[in-house]
């Protein structure tokens, strides 16, 4: 269970987020929709614990994982090392099994630069799920993928979520993605942005 209650988040004098409060239960997927620049990524950074400069509180499990807009891999380490460095408790066999699960079973030795963008995204998914997270945060994970690759990623994400059942927070501006993955959809809008139930209008 994760409980988020942000009262105020400012950048200088500008208030970006107002009252934003929600909870996500284990196994539940909450999608937050909203236009670009409304503060979705800011909210995610607060939930992820990367940004601690806000008023409010976030209570949640320690085992967190995040899938970023960009794959955000370590380009100087092999695909296998990208999993094992981030999750030191992960054995080599488990890491290989994880790579296999995302269809990169034979690319363990490759550097991220040798992988296609779709493969890099899958590696980033593998990294997120390899730690068996209790909280999963996804920041527009399917943006700038072509239709076929996007569909492949969506199906893979669906499978991995069903298997690991983390409390998932998904941020996107594509309603179709949200409707497909989420058990609940909320809408972030306004200035400062506040959260409303439903997909908005």
């Amino acid at each position: 269970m994760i409980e988020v209650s942000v009262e105020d988040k400012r950048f200088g004098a500008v208030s970006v987020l107002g009252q934003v409060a929600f909870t996500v239960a284990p196994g539940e997927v909450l999608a937050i929709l909203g236009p670009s620049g409304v503060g979705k990524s800011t909210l995610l950074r607060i939930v992820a614990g990367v940004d601690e400069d806000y008023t409010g509180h976030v209570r949640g499990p320690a085992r967190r994982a995040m899938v970023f807009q960009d794959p955000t891999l370590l380009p100087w380490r092999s695909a296998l090392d990208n999993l094992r460095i981030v999750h030191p408790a992960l054995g080599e066999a488990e890491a290989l099994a994880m790579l296999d699960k995302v269809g990169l079973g034979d690319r363990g030795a490759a550097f991220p630069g040798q992988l296609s963008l779709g493969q890099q995204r899958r590696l980033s998914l593998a990294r997120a799920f390899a730690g068996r997270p209790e909280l999963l945060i996804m920041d527009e994970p399917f943006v700038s993928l072509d239709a076929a690759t996007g569909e492949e990623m969506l199906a893979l994400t669906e499978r991995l979520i069903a298997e690991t059942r983390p409390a998932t927070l998904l941020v996107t501006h594509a309603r179709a993605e949200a409707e497909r993955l989420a058990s609940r959809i909320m809408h972030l809008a306004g200035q400062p942005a506040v959260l409303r139930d439903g997909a908005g209008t």
Partner: protein
Amino acid sequence: MSDTAQSRAVPALSLAVLLGVWAVAALLTRDPQLLPAPWQLAVPFWGELRSGDLLYHLGMTLWRVGCAFVLAMSIGVALGLVMGRSNAVDRWIDPWLVVFLNLPALVVIVLCYLWIGLTEVAAILAVSINKIPNVAIVLREGARALSPDLDSMARVYAMPRGARLRHVVLPQLAPFIAGAARSGVALIWKIVLVVEFLGRSSGVGFQIHMHFQLFDVGMVLVYALSFIAVMLVVEWRILQPWERHVRRWRAA
């Protein structure tokens, strides 16, 4: 001629031309006391090598270069990293850097010898102080260019400090460290020679001092050229292979 053959042949040819210019100049001077021809150095070189003097003094200089290099790089990298990450620290330390950058090497050396005495510690410290500001400035640029995305990634996944430094931060700084190291070695060995010239009784600088007082141009050249050869080996056998190893993920 293929590109690779050309890339090897041109530097060799260029060095041969330099040797030729030297030989012609020596022939025109017609005074081996003032400028011996390249082949006239063979006998004194062989003598110094057989007596063991050459290797001893080369070894001492190399040891000092190594100590000063390790000291300057570790302090410079740490300082640059902190300055690049924290604006407050940068504002406080930056004026110091400017002062030390503009402090002539000779002044640092003389002051170290006067305050600490004519010791090995003073010599190595003086060389390091001369180099630290350069390393810090290069590494500060590197630290400023660190990826905020990778930083967030490391925080979300709660990577321990050691792993973060080794796998996230240092690989990003590697090109800056390599640049500082290569320009550092070149600068450090020249300053080490001055330090030895002024206040040590061993090393290439000391030998050059002695033969300078005896007006022995040949021996000055023997020692100088031998050490250049040693530094070329360090460059080709250690620094360049290390740089290639660190950069291999880019080429892959």
